[in-house]
């Protein structure tokens, strides 16, 4: 154990859907400025765990600590207010709106208001969007461009940019590269490195182990709702992949032993 407090700590999280135990007491810690890869086979519980953190699910049991303080997340709004942002696999952008509108969607800046009539400050939103994209090195020709005219990589970049726009402490990315072409994947990985360089703490769910190897600091493997591995990313891609896969499919199950040895 290090002396620093994790930015997020989830302890003994349990969640069942009817008779199915999706999470059977998972511990997960994310350190400051860390990129954590969360992997596992289908139905291993990784999406469920992140939905618990982002407020989409309420756990049956377990506690969540943010910077050492116990928090109760009962909905997506709670999570957002606490600085936990989620980037969804299918981007979750409104394609008919422009880039600036999407970045500020649901958090529009208001110039003046009269009761329920709130007039937006479009100029300020466009300027801030431009600054955000420039800071993250996201290449979009204009923030007034409709999202439907962007490539897949650009859309994912905008979705990630939006998640970071409001002083997020923790960014969760669900399969950020799954729907993208090779060149777009490179763009998104560059963006994740850029975010880390600027101090962000990130959890990435991905089945593309080479991506986790490339940008991740640590990997956590879930299997059947339990954590079966948790160790730093090291070595070459080939041996990293083999080790992770052996945990994923259950060929190797020495987590409790490893922990005991490390203690």
């Amino acid at each position, binding site marked *: 154990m290090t002396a620093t407090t994790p930015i997020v700590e989830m302890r003994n999280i349990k969640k069942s859907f009817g008779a199915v135990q999706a999470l059977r007491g998972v511990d997960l810690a994310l350190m400051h400025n860390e990129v954590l890869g969360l992997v596992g086979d289908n139905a291993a519980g990784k999406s469920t765990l992140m939905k618990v953190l982002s407020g989409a699910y309420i756990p049956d049991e377990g506690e969540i600590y943010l910077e050492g303080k116990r928090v109760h997340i009962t909905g997506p709004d709670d999570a957002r207010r606490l600085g936990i942002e989620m980037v969804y696999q299918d981007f979750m952008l409104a394609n008919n709106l422009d880039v600036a509108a999407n970045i500020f*969607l*649901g958090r529009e800046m208001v110039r003046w208001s009269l009761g329920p009539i709130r007039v*937006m400050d479009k100029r300020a939103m466009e300027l801030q969007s431009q600054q955000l994209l*420039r800071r993250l090195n996201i*290449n979009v*020709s204009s923030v*007034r461009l409709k999202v439907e005219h962007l490539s*897949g990589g650009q859309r994912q970049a905008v979705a990630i940019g939006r998640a970071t726009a409001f002083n997020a402490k923790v960014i969760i990315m669900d399969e950020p590269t799954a729907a993208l072409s090779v*060149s777009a994947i490179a763009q998104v990985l560059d963006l994740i490195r850029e975010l880390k360089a600027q101090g962000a703490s990130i959890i990435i769910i991905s089945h593309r182990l080479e991506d986790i190897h490339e940008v991740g600091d640590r990997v956590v493997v879930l299997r059947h709702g339990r954590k079966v591995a948790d160790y730093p990313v090291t070595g070459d891609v080939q041996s990293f992949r083999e080790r992770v896969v052996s945990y994923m499919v259950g060929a190797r199950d020495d987590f409790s032993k490893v922990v005991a040895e490390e203690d």
Partner: protein
Amino acid sequence: MQERAAGAEKSAPSAQITRERPAWRRTINVQELGILAIFLLWVIFLSLATDTFLTTRNVFNMLRAFSWIAIAAFGQCMVILTAGIDLSVGSNMALSGLAAAMLAVNNVPVPLAILGGIATGGLIGLINGLLVTRLRLPPFIATLGMLSIARGVTYGVTGGWPVRQLPSEFNQIGQLDVMIGAWPVPLPVIVMLVLAALVSLFLSRTVTGRHIYAVGGNEEAARVSGIKTQSVKLFVYVSCGVLAAIGGILMTARLGVAAPTAAEGYELDIIAAAVIGGVSLFGGEGTILGVLIGAALMQTIRTGLNLLGFPTYWQPAAIGAVILLAVTFDQWRKRRSRTGR
């Protein structure tokens, strides 16, 4: 192809972020330009082909004749922007107009009678909205039921007889001409233009307006962005009901009689005006300016066919054909502009 473009852009300097479209292209979008061009061509043709089309009297008669359709179509536009539809607007116009008329006939002061009519329309919209948001009925079904219910109420309340002898003070709101310079502008036209400006500004400038477009563009994205999508939907159905009521009251006042058969089939004209004006039935696309042009095009086609001596009984077929042509042309142009990008 898109991905290759993205790869190429990657090496370009990020300074081009500030590149913008020219101002006129931002205020009027392509969708409206196409339909505006068709409209202008048709108007020019009619002005040359007939002596009567481009006279002050005819122009204002036409404007008045489509003003209530256009006003109801503004509300319809808001609903369709959220990927919904309101089929009950025609019945709503009849019932709200009737409510205002009955209040006026029974010596309720005219302003209060008008408010009563607007409240009736708002209530119809509220019920539509609750059916869609709470009972999760498809908008098509919910408002189809309301179409029948509201129409049935107008028949039931009147026993099928029109309400006549409305106070002249009430009829004034539909019949009065306001002199603006040398032009006698009908009051309903002024109401239409004021409402067009208000609704248009609301949709483009306010947070709620933005959320209406977002719900139509990607409802799930809007929801996870913290937008209360059900409240947005409720709001558009109530707004649509209120705007239909305003149209219905102006129509009733113009006719000077509240007939239970009034505005029958108007829902289709209203939806057609919105769609011709570029409002996408899939939601998220369209503007009030487009709706205004769409409604004007429908009216000039109708008047134009009359002036050209086109047989009256065949007119609905001609109008239907023009609607299909206009929308087909628009789709073709949109596809071309998208692939040629």
